[in-house]
């Protein structure tokens, strides 16, 4: 059954979209990763224009993260003050990112920029994941607990210090805003939540206790993806609500299944497969840059 996507202006099989949402949902449920960095490239591969894939995916992440954020908020696992600083940075980053997006779109280089970002991002994540899962497989990591490298000296030296009760910290507000800013740019250019970056950054750079890290990051993600969705809709007309709803529909079901599968299977050992998947997607996008294109000319509507 085909469905016509009103903004992407193409017709796609409805079950393909729900299925993609479901598979990525399962993976994210199993491994506790956000689906954005898997979903967006898959959308490129099925022929969704990158600009629309990115903006619609930001909208999907908003929906997918919302219930998680509520749950953490109820359990008071959110450092609100830190969250607001991250959101401040995130919103600024998103405004900046959407502007970059618009400029590159006008220059016809948007696809290149999005894909380049993905090559770097998928490459780095894939390699880290691959080696981490190798370690897990060789049971070496059993002895290594997460080292608590409490706030680096350069973080300590920065001005504008603030007290964060929930995290039990007294640190500068600058790094939090900067981290938020960076993740905001990623959200708007790549259509990802950025949990993959923000969580380690909170632990290693800010020195936040792991208890509040996930909740705070989800809290920031819903605000930043919300703002990103809005900005893309207003500035680039690139949010396809039919696309994001279908992905969300498959995604939420998939995520529930994924959590259940993750509990039964030794998901950590399957992580290497995820790493290989990520690396092969990276390779596929990279090759497109170098293989002589089939079509030299392209027409892009000027809005």
């Amino acid at each position: 059954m085909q469905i016509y996507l009103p903004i992407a202006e193409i017709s796609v099989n409805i079950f393909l979209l729900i299925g993609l949402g479901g598979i990525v949902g399962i993976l994210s449920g199993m491994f506790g990763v956000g689906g954005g960095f898997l979903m967006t490239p898959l959308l490129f591969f099925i022929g969704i224009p990158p600009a629309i894939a990115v903006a619609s995916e930001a909208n999907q992440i908003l929906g997918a993260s919302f219930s998680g954020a509520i749950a953490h908020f109820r359990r008071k696992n959110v450092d609100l003050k830190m969250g607001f600083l991250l959101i401040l940075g995130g919103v600024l980053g998103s405004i900046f990112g959407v502007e970059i997006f618009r400029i590159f779109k006008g220059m016809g280089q948007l696809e290149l920029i999005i894909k380049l970002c993905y090559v770097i991002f998928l490459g780095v994540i894939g390699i880290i994941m691959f080696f981490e899962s190798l370690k897990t497989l060789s049971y070496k990591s059993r002895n290594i607990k997460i080292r608590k490298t409490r706030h680096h000296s350069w973080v300590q030296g920065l001005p504008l210090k603030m007290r964060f009760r929930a995290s039990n910290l007294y640190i500068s507000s600058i790094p939090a805003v900067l981290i938020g800013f960076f993740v905001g740019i990623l959200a708007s250019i790549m259509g990802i939540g950025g949990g993959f970056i923000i969580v380690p950054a909170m632990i290693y750079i800010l020195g936040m206790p792991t208890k509040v890290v996930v909740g705070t990051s989800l809290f920031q993600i819903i605000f930043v993806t919300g703002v990103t969705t809005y900005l893309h809709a207003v500035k680039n007309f690139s949010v396809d609500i039919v696309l994001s709803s279908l992905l969300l529909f498959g995604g939420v079901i998939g995520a529930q299944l994924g959590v259940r599968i993750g509990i039964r299977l030794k998901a950590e050992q399957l992580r290497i497969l995820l790493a290989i998947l990520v690396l092969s997607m990276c390779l596929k996008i990279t090759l497109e840059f170098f293989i002589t294109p089939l079509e030299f000319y392209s027409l892009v509507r000027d809005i």
Partner: protein
Amino acid sequence: MKLFYKLIIMIFIYNLSSISARSAEVPPSLVTDLSKKVISINVSFSGSKFHIFGAIKKYVSQISPIDQPPFDIVIEVIGPPVKMNIFKKEKKYGFWINKKIQTLNSMPSFYSISGTKSLKDLLPIKTQRSYEIGISEHINLSDSKLKKEFIDHIISNGKAKKQYNLNNTPITLLENTLFSNEIDFPTNLYEGNYKVKIHLIRFEEVLATKQDIIYVKKIGVQNWINYLAYQKPELYGVACIIIAITFGFGASLVFRKKV
């Protein structure tokens, strides 16, 4: 199709009656119709087809059809004009990068041409120009070499193949009178009026041109979403946020109950 057969019968009756009419030297003209006047894009839209059919109305009827000089038909379908940027991929620092060539202010969003023979065999370039027939007339690219390359490339083997269709199957002209042509609309159609131009050609001259219009519109949810997204983007943005949140939250409620 019923309409088509009806038309065939009509034409035969018409021809019989015109034999007795014996009018003076009036040039032949065209009688045409479209199988659809309106194409609606709804949620389940996956492309559409329509037929253009018609007949050549001849006044000099003493001569048997076989002896008449062969008529040729060219049918153009021209979509609503949109502003488009043309990019060309060029190799830079080892990888392929888009280079903007030109902005075309009114490029047809769709173009299809079909005929009993290919246009270049029927009309000299000069005549094509004066009658504004052919895709070339619609592309205002300043560099003529680039223009030729562009037309050859994007239109004959690109993604845009269905959007700019120059390689249609030839039209057959039955008894030098009847013709029909199927147009295959792709899924990425723009809303608006699509001009259908039917040209009657003989001896490198355009004897008659008939124009008709097929209207493509988005209907239902599709139209509604498009209106919001492009006319009220602020409202649309907020709606997207609310829908996503409702979806995510609703799903988590459903699953919580089951566990």
